[in-house]
């Protein structure tokens, strides 16, 4: 079956702009996660959804970052007033339920100029 998909695969934007990153999890997976990976580092946790609700958003770096999952499937990560330091690969993962194996998407490479 289809894995986790993310769009766009690459995004180049200018400092100060708004961006949206989309994640389509594996069908039937109730848990969805966003991570951010900088060059040479491992992924860092941003937010976890169980169903439609954000159960843990403790990893979001500041209030410019927001994520939604209105119907419990697709999720969108939104970044306002982008800064150069936001440049990274944004990874989405999903799992059947919490504590189950997480399956990662290919990521969106965000470059803020």
């Amino acid at each position, binding site marked *: 079956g289809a894995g*986790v998909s993310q769009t766009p695969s690459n995004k180049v934007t200018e400092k100060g702009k708004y961006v949206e990153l989309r994640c389509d999890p594996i069908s039937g997976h109730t*848990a969805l*996660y966003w*991570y951010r990976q900088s060059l*040479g*580092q*491992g*992924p*860092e*946790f941003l937010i*976890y959804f169980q169903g439609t609700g954000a*159960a*843990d958003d403790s*990893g979001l770096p500041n209030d410019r970052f927001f994520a939604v999952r209105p119907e419990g499937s697709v999720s969108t990560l939104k970044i306002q007033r982008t800064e150069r330091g936001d440049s990274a690969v944004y*990874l989405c*993962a999903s*799992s059947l339920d*919490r*504590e189950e*194996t*997480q*399956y*990662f*998407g*290919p*990521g969106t490479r965000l470059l803020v100029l």
Partner: protein
Amino acid sequence: SQKIEQNSEALNIQEGKTATLTCNYTNYSPAYLQWYRQDPGRGPVFLLLIRENEKEKRKERLKVTFDTTLKQSLFHITASQPADSATYLCAQSNDYKLSFGAGTTVTVRA
């Protein structure tokens, strides 16, 4: 706070040899340690999970150990092949949140 440390130097080995990667954690023993493989431009792919009360886990040519006394997990790739060349990430979790190390890049020479 808990830190996950992996040997930062890249590992270059000859085909057929065993690659051994180290993952150390600093504080409390996590409920699980997980190992992922990541190829350039791709997301991490789950390989193995080992629980706190397990000493060893195997999957085909892969073996993982968990030593709570040393606060360490070792990841072995036996009979390595060039196709095993990738970055290997260690992650600890107690629930749903994964905390990753920086990864170790392995290159297997033919």
